[in-house]
């Protein structure tokens, strides 16, 4: 029989996925967590709570900046929102300021007072790790991630051909049946959210398309700088040097909101504040529309008059905007956000079960199952460290956020080191122990770490689960409950694995039965 389409696809599927499977697992895991980026950050900075009106918070921030950076060429104010309780401000220092060029930022409360929050990268670290990785130059990371995403796309498409029974076995998930169960888990998680997986992988590539395929820009623009200027026009004018008071912000922001019925306020940029050439650019919140490149209104900074409304976009830009928006899911309200999260968890399990499946299928065919060859052992150990170790390490990151001393030098960086130290430790453990024991032990440790997160929260802050439940603080309650849920889930998996006794296999007579095809 000649190698048909299905066989070659099976080969492609198996090896593309294996080669970058561990990276993809990490990308899926952190990307899924990043759907709750803002909520994780809020949980990791328990010092601040409460809600503030976005307009009030923007006005407070402007007052702060007038005091702090009156000569700055531009301020950026991201007011509070439904998901964020702090105001973030960023400004470019005036050329005359000491310290020079680098932008400064500050975190303010809803009234414009600077707040002392613990030094942490919060959910943003997980979000950035998703495509920038860590401990390596960003540009390399993005190429690596791009290659992985490309492989993922190949793996999805070849997977649909390879796993021929995905539709016949559409509703099948059988537990406790060895290889069959792993295959079921792999198929079910893949098929249930197939549109999501295709969308997320494809749009993921689109988010960094100009990096991966720079030729379209190279052919049409002098350099990428002029391209981005054309794409995101600044509309800022040269400062005239003639002082003029900045128009009150409230009417401007209210004007902007009346332009977008049901809309929300995004970032406001003030260029040349206190100059006759001042401009105020108000962006619509990226949470309002599926497209992520938000609309922008330009106001005169002295008179407060509306100068320009968002131009109509070309089809290509609109498409790009919507694709990036679909990927990041910033538009999603709580219910849809959970659906995104669920699909992401499914994707993580799909990649993880695929990795495990590689070893499960090959174990039976090993010549000497007690002494597998090096490649097999490598995959097996890396699987333990990634599939069981990384989730545990993420829980460790949350715990580090509560336990590291607040005045530690480079505290935010140390939280991240903690994650990688734990992850590395799980690899050492996986290498040092018999593989099955390693699976059970690393997963049990992961379950304990997840269970410890709400516990440590209760011991170190006043915002423990009971308090947040009675207060109706769903960000904190939701976070703690999710941690408990994952603790139970991982714990059950570990228990199941520990109790599992593989059936004694009667050695199969060679050729008596055709080798089980990948199905």
């Amino acid at each position, binding site marked *: 029989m000649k190698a048909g389409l299905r066989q070659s696809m099976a080969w492609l599927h198996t090896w593309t996925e294996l080669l970058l499977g561990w990276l993809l697992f990490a990308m899926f895991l952190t990307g899924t967590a990043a759907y709750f980026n803002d909520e994780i950050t809020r949980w990791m900075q328990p010092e601040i709570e409460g809600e503030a009106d976005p307009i009030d918070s923007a006005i407070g921030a402007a007052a702060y900046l007038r005091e702090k950076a009156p000569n700055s060429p531009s301020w950026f104010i991201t007011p509070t929102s439904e998901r964020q309780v702090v105001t973030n401000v960023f400004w470019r220092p005036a050329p005359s300021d000491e310290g020079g060029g680098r932008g400064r930022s500050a975190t303010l409360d809803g009234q414009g007072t600077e707040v002392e929050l613990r030094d942490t990268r919060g959910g943003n670290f997980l979000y950035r790790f998703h495509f920038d990785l860590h401990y390596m130059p960003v540009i390399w990371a993005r190429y690596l991630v791009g290659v992985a995403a490309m492989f993922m796309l190949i793996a999805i498409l070849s997977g649909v051909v390879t796993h021929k029974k995905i539709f*016949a076995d*559409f*509703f*099948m*998930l*059988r*537990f406790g049946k060895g290889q069959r169960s792993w295959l079921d888990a792999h198929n*079910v998680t893949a098929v*249930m*959210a197939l*549109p*999501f997986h295709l969308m997320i992988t494809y749009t993921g590539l689109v988010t960094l398309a100009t990096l991966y395929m720079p030729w379209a820009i190279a052919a049409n623009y002098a350099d990428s700088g002029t391209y981005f200027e054309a794409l995101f026009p600044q509309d800022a004018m040269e400062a005239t040097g003639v002082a003029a008071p900045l128009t009150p912000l409230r009417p401007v922001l209210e004007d902007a909101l009346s332009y977008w019925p049901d809309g929300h306020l995004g970032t406001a940029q003030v260029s040349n504040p206190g100059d006759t050439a001042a401009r105020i650019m108000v962006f619509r919140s990226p949470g309002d*529309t*599926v497209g992520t490149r938000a609309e922008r209104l330009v106001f005169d900074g002295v008179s407060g008059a509306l100068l320009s409304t968002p131009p109509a976009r070309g089809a290509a830009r609109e498409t790009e905007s*919507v694709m990036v928006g*679909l990927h990041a899911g910033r*538009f*999603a309200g709580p*219910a*849809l956000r959970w*659906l*995104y999260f*669920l*699909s992401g968890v*499914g994707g993580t399990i799909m990649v993880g079960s695929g990795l495990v499946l590689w070893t499960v299928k090959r174990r039976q065919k090993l010549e000497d199952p007690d002494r597998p060859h090096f490649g097999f052992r490598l995959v097996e150990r890396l699987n333990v460290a990634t599939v069981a170790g990384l989730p545990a390490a993420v829980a460790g990151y949350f715990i580090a956020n509560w336990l590291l001393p607040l005045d530690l030098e480079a505290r935010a960086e140390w939280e991240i080191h903690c994650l990688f130290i734990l992850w590395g430790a799980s690899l050492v453990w996986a290498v040092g122990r018999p593989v099955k024991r390693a699976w059970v032990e690393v997963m049990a440790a992961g379950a304990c770490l997840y269970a410890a997160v709400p516990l440590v929260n209760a011991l170190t802050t006043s915002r423990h689960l009971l308090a947040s439940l009675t207060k109706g603080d769903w960000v904190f309650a939701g976070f703690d409950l999710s941690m408990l849920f994952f603790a139970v889930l991982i714990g059950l998996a570990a228990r199941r694995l520990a109790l599992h006794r593989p059936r004694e296999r009667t050695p199969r007579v060679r050729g008596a039965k055709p080798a089980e095809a990948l199905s």
Partner: protein
Amino acid sequence: MSHIVGTILSLAGFIALCLAMPRHQRDLLGRALSEGGVCALRLTGFCLLGLSFLQATWSLGWAYGVISWLGYMSLAAWILILLISWRTQRA
């Protein structure tokens, strides 16, 4: 609210599609259905999924509707799969 309705419609659709498959008839009903029954179930299933789509796009608009609908189907299928595997485990 519309999320719940959409998910329930998807779930109902998948239950019908699931029961249209011989293997699940054996597991869940204990008997095989007639040709006509299978056909009717399959039709009902797809219609219900279609209804869930209409409901989502009707109440949330085109852009959000399509995305939400895919989400409902994923969630509904997950619920059904877990229910089935829990039932067959017990049996």
